[in-house]
């Protein structure tokens, strides 16, 4: 009971000290607030982008087969699909034609799906806000499903017609049968999905050619082994999920890394400010420490007081900074900072930035803010506390 009362009194004393040295507290809180707001907005966004990329790669075909000619990617003959289908371990091969189409200054992704071979039993309707998804009956009808970004930019709704110009400068009219929902916009915002036949016609693909093949392996089959069995097929290049995921993580991780480096420098500056404040106040508190020791405070009590002060300041500033950073990224799309992650990319207002507060990032931020703050405030306090009280008071008044 006495022990609890003692710690409670030390806690109350720490709060009083926080009030007494409020200028030091304010300087530390503001510097840490700025630093953690910036880094958390970038880290949470980076985590969000990585997570979304991981979702997409996990949902991607086990293998993507491209065709190389003179070292360059060109359309792949559809006939090769039969050879790939015959490979041991392959369950399904789907043809795919996809590419880009420009509307104004923007570029959108046009995807032609092999509707005959698709498994639609999972229900793609969940991602549709209005209208419907494509069915095998849509082949050759120029029916399309569009993303929310395109719908918003062109004021399109289900039932409207739109024209796209191809690279061969041919205008093709399409009929919108569905619009994707907000929930899927991180994936579908810029998509125009149409039947494979219509995409082939739109891109003016040579007869019997598609962009690539999506290959699904049998359950239990190792995608790497299946890929190795295809190595004798001429001109093909095989990409597996792992290579795609590593590519994504490298892209976003490297960009996030540049910012993290800059932030580390900023944090070092913040820690120095905290240390400088601790030293300035330490001079004032020398007398106080000497007095406390005269009244019977132990060295441990004094360290505990400073520890409590630093913990309150550190957790208050860091947690508040992270919450502001989270709101800045999640609700305002992190203007300014997000450019570091996205490079030349832009974020249309139609969709929200994916923000993910990972436990790893959370602990990392606490580790690099609270611990240095503890060190820079507790160490000077400990040095004062181990000094003889009389000398400490004399130094304090000097």
């Amino acid at each position, binding site marked *: 009971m006495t022990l609890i009362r003692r710690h409670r009194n030390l806690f109350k004393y720490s709060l009083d000290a926080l009030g007494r040295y409020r200028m030091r507290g304010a300087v530390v809180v503001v510097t840490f607030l700025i630093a953690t707001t910036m880094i958390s907005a970038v880290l949470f966004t980076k985590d969000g*982008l990585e997570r979304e990329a991981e979702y997409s790669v*996990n*949902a991607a075909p086990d293998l993507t087969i491209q065709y190389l000619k003179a070292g360059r990617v060109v359309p792949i003959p559809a006939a090769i699909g039969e050879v790939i289908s015959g490979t041991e371990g392959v369950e399904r091969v789907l043809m795919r034609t996809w590419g880009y189409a420009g509307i104004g200054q923007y570029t959108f992704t046009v995807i032609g799906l092999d509707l005959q071979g698709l498994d639609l039993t999972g229900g793609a309707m969940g991602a549709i806000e209005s209208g419907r998804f494509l069915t095998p009956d849509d082949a050759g009808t120029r029916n399309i499903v569009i993303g929310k970004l395109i719908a918003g930019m062109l004021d399109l709704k289900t039932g409207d017609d739109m024209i796209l110009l191809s690279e061969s400068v041919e205008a093709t009219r399409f009929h919108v049968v569905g619009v994707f929902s907000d929930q899927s916009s991180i994936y579908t915002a810029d*998509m125009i999905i149409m039947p494979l036949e219509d995409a082939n016609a739109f891109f003016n693909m040579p007869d019997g050619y598609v962009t690539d093949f999506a290959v699904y392996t049998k359950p239990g089959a190792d995608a790497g082994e299946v890929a190795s069995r295809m190595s004798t097929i001429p001109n093909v290049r095989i990409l597996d999920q792992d290579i795609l995921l590593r590519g994504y993580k490298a892209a976003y991780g490297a960009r996030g890394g540049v910012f993290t480096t800059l932030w580390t420098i900023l944090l070092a500056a913040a820690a120095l400010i905290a240390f400088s404040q601790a030293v300035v106040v330490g001079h004032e508190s020398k007398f106080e420490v000497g007095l406390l020791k005269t009244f019977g405070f132990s060295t441990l009590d004094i360290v505990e007081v400073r520890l409590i002060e630093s913990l309150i300041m550190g957790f208050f500033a860091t947690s508040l900074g992270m919450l502001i950073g989270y709101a800045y990224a999640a609700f305002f799309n992190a203007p300014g900072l997000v450019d570091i992650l996205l*490079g030349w990319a832009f*974020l249309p207002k139609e969709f929200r930035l994916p923000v993910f*507060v990972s436990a790893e990032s959370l602990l990392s931020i606490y580790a690099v803010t609270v611990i240095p703050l503890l060190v820079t405030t507790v160490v000077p306090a400990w040095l004062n506390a181990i000094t003889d009280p009389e000398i400490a008071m004399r130094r304090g008044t000097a």
Partner: protein
Amino acid sequence: MRRITIVAVLAIALTVAISAISFTDEAGWRDGGGSAMTIREVVGLPSIAIGTNYEGTRNPLLEMYVRPLYDIPGGYDYAVPSSFIGTPLGIPAYRETIPEFNITIKKG
């Protein structure tokens, strides 16, 4: 309650709040993406809709691998010239010369 006590209470409350957000996000992540996964599985394009004004970033997985491995020198990467130089379709003056073309022609 004293003003300075509020700071201590807030420190705990804010820490709990951000930890709760993290816990929720982590739990959602383990859920595997939920209904949003279906459309990704159907489409099968392993990318996200970031960077729609630069083709290379829409599908960094495919295009970015092409560039370092096979396309220097030589410039297969059509995405770069189209982003920097622009295509006829990206120029308003060009589009306006196409009779009656205004992207959307008929409202349903």
